[in-house]
C-alpha cells in the first residue's frame, strides 16, 4: 500500500527529492511523533537547554535592572536615542519573516518542499516576534505604561496618534504575532490529535487531547479546515509584506538623512526574508542532524533555501547600490554627506563588514557544490545573520550620530547591559525552540502524509 519506492530516473535525481523514498503514512507518523513521545530526552538536549535558559535568565535580569534604573544603563543618549533596542527589534522581526514566507507564500505557490520545514519555521517566527516585541516595549523607558499605545477609553481623554509610524508598528506587530499564532496552531491541531492517540501516560494524553480540541479527522471538518488554512495563508502573505514595510516606515517617514528614502520598504522586506532564511538554515541543519530527519528535510530543502537566500541577498545588494545612487542623484547635500560617512565615518568598519557578510559571502551560493555542502552552508547562514544585524546597526546608529549640524553629532557605543539584553533574547529564543522540539512535532505529520499520498500517486 501507499508509497513504495518512487522510480525517479537518474537525470532527475540531480535535484534531491522532497521526501526520501520508502515512506508510508505509518512510517512518517511513527518517525515524527517518536521524537516527542518515545525518544528519551538526550543529554545534549539538557545541556543545550540549560545554556539557552541561562542566557534567558540573563535577559530577565537585564530587564529587571533596566526597570530599576531606567534606560540610562544602555549606551543611548542624545543624539543616538535608538541603539541596540531598535537594531535588535528590526533584526528579530526580520528573522520571523521567513517563517511566514515559507508557510504562507510557498503554500499559495504550491511548493511541495515547504512541507517539512514550515512547522519549525513558523515556531521560529513566533519566538522571534516575541524577542522582537520585548525591545520597543522596554525601550519606552516605562514599560508598565506600554498599554497606552493601544486605543482604550481612558480618564486622560486622549487617543493614540494614528499618524505616527510608531503606532502603526504597534498594530502591525501585534497583528503579525496573532495571525502567526493562528497559522501555527491551526496547523498543529491534527498533529496534536495524532499525539493524543499515541501518547501513553494518561496525563500526556489529556494534555494533548485538550490542545487538539477534540479533532477527529472528520471529512466535514477537513473540508472547512482546508478552506480556513488557505484563507489564512492568503491573509498572511500581504501581512508579512506590510509588517516590515511598516518597520521601514519608522525610519523612512522621519526626515533624518539616510532614512528618508523610498527604497526602504522593499529593501527592508527583502532583507527580512534574507536574514530569515539564513536563520531557518542555521536551525534546520543541526535539527535534521540531531533528530535524524535527513529523510524529511532533504538536500533539496537546503538547496532551495540557499537559492532564496542568494536571490534576496542580491535584492539587498541592489538596495545598497540604490542608496548611494539616490544620494548623489538627488539634490540633498546631507544625503550625499551621509552616504560618504558610511564609507569614511566612525562606523565604517561595520559597513565594510556588512558588505562582506551580506554581499560578498552569499555569492558563493551560485555554486551548487557549495549549496549542497552542509557545513559551508551553515557557516554562510551564520555570516548572513551577523551581516544583517550589522546592517541594522549601521542604519539605526549612523544616521542619528551624523545629523545636520556638526554640533549635534555624537557617538554611540553599547554597554554591558545592551549586550546582555541582546544575548539574553538569543537565549530566550533558543530556550523556546528547545522546548518546542521536545513537546510538539517539529514537522507537520498530517502534511507529510499528504506528501506521501502525492508521491505515491506520481509513481503510478
Amino acid at each position: 500500500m501507499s508509497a513504495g519506492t518512487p522510480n525517479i530516473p537518474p537525470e532527475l535525481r540531480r535535484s534531491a527529492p522532497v521526501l526520501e523514498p520508502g515512506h508510508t503514512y505509518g512510517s512518517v507518523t511513527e518517525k515524527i511523533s517518536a521524537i516527542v513521545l518515545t525518544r528519551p530526552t538526550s543529554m545534549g538536549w539538557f545541556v543545550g537547554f540549560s545554556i539557552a535558559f541561562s542566557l534567558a535568565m540573563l535577559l530577565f535580569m537585564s530587564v529587571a535592572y533596566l526597570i530599576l534604573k531606567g534606560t540610562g544603563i544602555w549606551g543611548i543618549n542624545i543624539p543616538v536615542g535608538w541603539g541596540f533596542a531598535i537594531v535588535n527589534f528590526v533584526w528579530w522581526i526580520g528573522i520571523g519573516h521567513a517563517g511566514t514566507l515559507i508557510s504562507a507564500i510557498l503554500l499559495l505557490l504550491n511548493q511541495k518542499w515547504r512541507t517539512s520545514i514550515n512547522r519549525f519555521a513558523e515556531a521560529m517566527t513566533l519566538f522571534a516576534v516575541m524577542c522582537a516585541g520585548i525591545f520597543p516595549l522596554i525601550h519606552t523607558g516605562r514599560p508598565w505604561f506600554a498599554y497606552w499605545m493601544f486605543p482604550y477609553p481612558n480618564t486622560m481623554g486622549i487617543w493614540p496618534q494614528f499618524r505616527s509610524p510608531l503606532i502603526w508598528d504597534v498594530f502591525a506587530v501585534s497583528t503579525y504575532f496573532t495571525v502567526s499564532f493562528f497559522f501555527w496552531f491551526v496547523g498543529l491541531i491534527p498533529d496534536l490529535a495524532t499525539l493524543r492517540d499515541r501518547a501513553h501516560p494518561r496525563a500526556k494524553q489529556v494534555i494533548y487531547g485538550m490542545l487538539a480540541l477534540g479533532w477527529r479527522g472528520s471529512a466535514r471538518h477537513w473540508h472547512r479546515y482546508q478552506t480556513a488554512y488557505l484563507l489564512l495563508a492568503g491573509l498572511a502573505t500581504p501581512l508579512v509584506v506590510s509588517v516590515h514595510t511598516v518597520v521601514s516606515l519608522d525610519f523612512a517617514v522621519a526626515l533624518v538623512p539616510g532614512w528618508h528614502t523610498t527604497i526602504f520598504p522593499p529593501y527592508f522586506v527583502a532583507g527580512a526574508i534574507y536574514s530569515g532564511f539564513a536563520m531557518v538554515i542555521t536551525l534546520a541543519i543541526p535539527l535534521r542532524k540531531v533528530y535524524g530527519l535527513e529523510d524529511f528535510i532533504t538536500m533539496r530543502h537546503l538547496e532551495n533555501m540557499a537559492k532564496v537566500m542568494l536571490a534576496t541577498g542580491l535584492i539587498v545588494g541592489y538596495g545598497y547600490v540604490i542608496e548611494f545612487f539616490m544620494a548623489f542623484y538627488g539634490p540633498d547635500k546631507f544625503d550625499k554627506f551621509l552616504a560618504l560617512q558610511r564609507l569614511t565615518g566612525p562606523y565604517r568598519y561595520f559597513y565594510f563588514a556588512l558588505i562582506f557578510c551580506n554581499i560578498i559571502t552569499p555569492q558563493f551560493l551560485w555554486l551548487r557544490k557549495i549549496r549542497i555542502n552542509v557545513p559551508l552552508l551553515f557557516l554562510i547562514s551564520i555570516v548572513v545573520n551577523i551581516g544583517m544585524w550589522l546592517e541594522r546597526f549601521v542604519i539605526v546608529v549612523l544616521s542619528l550620530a551624523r545629523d545636520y549640524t556638526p554640533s549635534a553629532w555624537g557617538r554611540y557605543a553599547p554597554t554591558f547591559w545592551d549586550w546582555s539584553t541582546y544575548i539574553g533574547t538569543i537565549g530566550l529564543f533558543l530556550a523556546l525552540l528547545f522546548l518546542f522540539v521536545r513537546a510538539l512535532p517539529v514537522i507537520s505529520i498530517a502534511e507529510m502524509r499528504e506528501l506521501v499520498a502525492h508521491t505515491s500517486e506520481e509513481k503510478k
Partner: protein
Amino acid sequence: MIEHRSHLYGVMAEFDTTEQLIEAAGKARAAGYKRVNAYTPFPVEGLAEALGFRRSAVPLITLIGGLLGGGGGFAMQYWMSAISYPENIGGRPLNSWPSFIIVTFELTILGAATFAVLGMLALNKLPQPHHPVFNSPRFALASNNRFFLCIEARDAKFDRVRTALFLENLHAHDVAEVPDE
C-alpha cells in the same frame, strides 16, 4: 441481545487507501445513505465531492471579519482623531485618511484571520473533547494511517444488519458498530 437503535451512533468501516474510501463513499451515497461521514488522517482530495458536501461558509465568515475589522478600524481612527480629540496642527486636515490606511489594513487582516479561525472551529463544533466515534475500537488509527467511513444511525435508511453488510461488501478492512455512549 438486541441493542436499541438509539444506543448506536452508527457503523464504521475501515479502509487501507484513499481510493477505496472515496469509492465506498460514492457507493454509499449512491445507495441512498444521506448521513455519511469519513474520518481521515489528512485531507483527502475528492472526498468532499464524493460525500456531497456543499461549499463551506468559512470564506463568507472571513469576508465579514475582514470588513468589520477594516471598516471598524477606519471608523475608530476617524472618530478618535477627528471627533473625540480633534487637534488642529497647522491647519492640517483632521481626517488625514492616508495615514489611517496602515492601521485599517492591519485590522482588516486581524479581523479576517480571527473570524476565519474561530468561524472554522465554530462550524466544526470544536472544541468538543468527546464524540461517539472515539468509541470505535480501531479509531485511533484515523489519526495515523487508516481511513474510516461511518454511516450514522440517524440516517433514514440505516439498518444495523443491512448497513453493516453493505459496508462489508465495499472491501472494507474491518466493519464495527459504534456505540453512542
